[in-house]
């Protein structure tokens, strides 16, 4: 779209500039020529005026030389006797033509000591006429004094005819290009104003699509574009509402399940056979845990906001300290490495603590007393990496293959940790520690 608007503006500007510049160029061309012709004739007249004062031969010579040099138009003066000062290309045909009427109309040139120049047929100052000659034009006039008659010629070459035109053309082309540039800049600004908010709106839609329901589009820019943004925002708000409603319904239904579950638990407790009581009790317990997890998950956004965050350094430190009492008691060598500074991650403190508890509990439950373990938290480019390693027998092979483990009395241990890591946008990997024990790594997304 940006390219199209740009092309459109450039095209339109070019058309306008061309439509304006061509006639201006033609006018310019003829105006410059006219001016040069006028100046040539004026020059011839000036020379005529000068000559009418009957100057000395030396004065004529130097005058003609200086005029030729200063105007760049060769000027020549030919006396009646044929003596010529200065050089101009002559048109023999024209010279002859001048000779005849010039010589034949002496009465029409009343010379005088007054300095009044003789005139042509119009009786005013002797007006020069232009004749084409090879390579240019020749302005010719005559002036008659009491003593002689001068033929004046000023040569205007074709090159000089259009001299000075280049700078006008330069101005015209420069102005046109300037206008074009202005159009491009204006188009660029305009498209930015339109396209930028649109691009960001598209980006917002992408974010919404990948599940970031906090994303909102900008409502700036031209009215219609802003309208697109706010429409998308309204849609996102509505999605939020619907999700919240759904979650509330799920939570509510799950709450209601707790009543029959209570009856079940009480009845299970009352079973006569203690084995039956325990077995049924265990089933009820796991049902209960599931239900609590469902309610917990449904209520999560309401509890934590849409983007939970916590300081991994603080949470890990606190939980490790909590378990240290039991670790000490079991004479386990514990190695803890935490970063010096807070490390914000995208998980609630509650979830992260539950994940760490689950991992540490796993270590304690599944390695013999006295087995060493280590906890390392490191900042990574993409968040935080938490490693819990032990020197125990390691994870069962199938746990590594399937990437999940059911070990742990609750069967939920690693699942809790995995959910926490994945919920933050990270992952959990299972591996073997350097001592051959279990190594569980949580990658947590930064907050």
């Amino acid at each position: 779209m940006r390219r199209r608007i740009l092309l459109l503006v450039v095209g339109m500007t070019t058309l306008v500039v061309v439509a304006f510049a061509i006639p201006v160029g033609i006018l310019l061309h003829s105006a410059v020529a006219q001016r040069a012709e006028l100046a040539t004739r004026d020059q011839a007249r000036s020379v005529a005026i000068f000559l009418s004062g009957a100057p000395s031969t030396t004065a004529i010579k130097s005058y003609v030389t200086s005029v030729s040099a200063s105007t760049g138009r060769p000027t020549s003066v030919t006396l009646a006797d044929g003596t010529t000062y200065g050089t101009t290309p002559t048109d023999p045909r024209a010279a002859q033509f001048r000779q005849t009427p010039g010589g034949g109309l002496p009465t029409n040139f009343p010379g005088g000591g007054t300095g009044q120049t003789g005139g042509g047929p119009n009786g005013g100052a002797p007006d020069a006429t232009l004749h084409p000659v090879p390579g240019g034009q020749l302005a010719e006039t005559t002036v008659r004094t009491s003593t002689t008659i001068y033929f004046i010629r000023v040569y205007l070459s074709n090159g000089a005819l259009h001299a000075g035109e280049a700078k006008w053309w330069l101005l015209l082309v420069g102005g046109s290009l300037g206008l074009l540039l202005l159009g491009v800049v204006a188009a660029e600004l305009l498209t930015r104003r339109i396209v930028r908010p649109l691009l960001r709106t598209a980006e917002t839609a992408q974010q919404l699509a990948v599940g970031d329901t906090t994303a909102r589009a900008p409502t700036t820019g031209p009215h219609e574009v802003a309208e697109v943004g706010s429409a998308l925002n309204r849609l996102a708000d509505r999605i939020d509402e619907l999700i919240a409603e759904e979650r509330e319904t799920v939570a509510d239904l799950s709450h209601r399940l707790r009543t029959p579950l209570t009856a079940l638990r009480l009845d299970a407790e009352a079973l006569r056979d203690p084995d039956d009581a325990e077995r049924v009790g265990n089933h009820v317990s796991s049902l209960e845990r599931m239900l609590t997890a469902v309610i917990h998950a449904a209520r999560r956004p309401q509890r934590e906001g849409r983007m939970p965050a916590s300081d991994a350094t603080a949470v890990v430190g606190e939980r490790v300290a909590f378990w240290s009492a039991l670790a000490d008691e079991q004479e386990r060598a514990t190695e803890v490495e935490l970063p010096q500074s807070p490390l914000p991650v995208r998980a609630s403190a509650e979830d992260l603590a539950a994940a760490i508890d689950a991992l540490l509990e796993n270590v304690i439950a599944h390695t013999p007393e006295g087995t060493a373990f280590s906890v390392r938290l490191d900042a990574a480019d993409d968040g935080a990496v938490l490693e819990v390693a032990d020197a125990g027998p390691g994870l069962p092979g199938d746990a590594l293959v399937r990437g999940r483990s059911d070990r742990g009395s609750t069967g939920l241990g690693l699942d809790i940790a995995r959910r926490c890591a994945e919920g933050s946008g990270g992952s959990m990997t299972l591996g073997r520690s350097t001592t051959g024990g279990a190594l569980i790594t949580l990658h947590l997304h930064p907050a």
Partner: protein
Amino acid sequence: MAMVLLVEDDAAIRTALTRALRELGHGVTSVSSGMPALSAAVEQKPDVVLLDLGLPDIDGADVLSMLRAVSDVPVIVATARDEESEMVRLLEIGADDYVIKPFTAVQLNARIRAVLRRTGRTDEDPMITVGGLKIDTRSYEVTVDGRPVELARKEFELLLALARRAGGVVTKRDLLAEVWQLAWGGSDRTVDVHLSWLRRKLGESAANPRYLYSVRGVGVRLAAPTEPS
């Protein structure tokens, strides 16, 4: 041991709870809705009321308010909702304690006893003494040989649960039920780690126990030290 008025609309729970509480030695009267509950509370003067919030006629919270207007009988609310705000609201309108569904009879019994103790409606001695260990169940103060011990809430509850059955082995399952209300993810290790802290704070260790003895595979026993260490 105590006269319990059970207000519960779910027949299955009512039957089961009545039976369980009777087995635990309580006298139980049960009603299934709000209005009979109010009159029973006034007429029969129970020691404690167990009130379910979802009643068919009046909302449980309203029953509680109405009850508070005429009686100061201790009330334990049974609720399916576990949000903190809900708990605070219930306690503010006059509940003495709450249990979250699904609860067990053991848990409920512990709550009943705690409430009775707090409100002074029990003949139980508020001081529990095991050797040099003294637990004041009203002020939540613990001393060992006269030296005060600072305990976190769960640690105190754990110690209390053990001290009440001093000399006997208490299973970790019972402790989880009574102290932790069987929270999700609750496992034996939860009990273990709290026991470690308790030992540390009482000034002993698993290797050199004075009061707290782990009985492998069974549970934990709290007993007075046999010989001064």
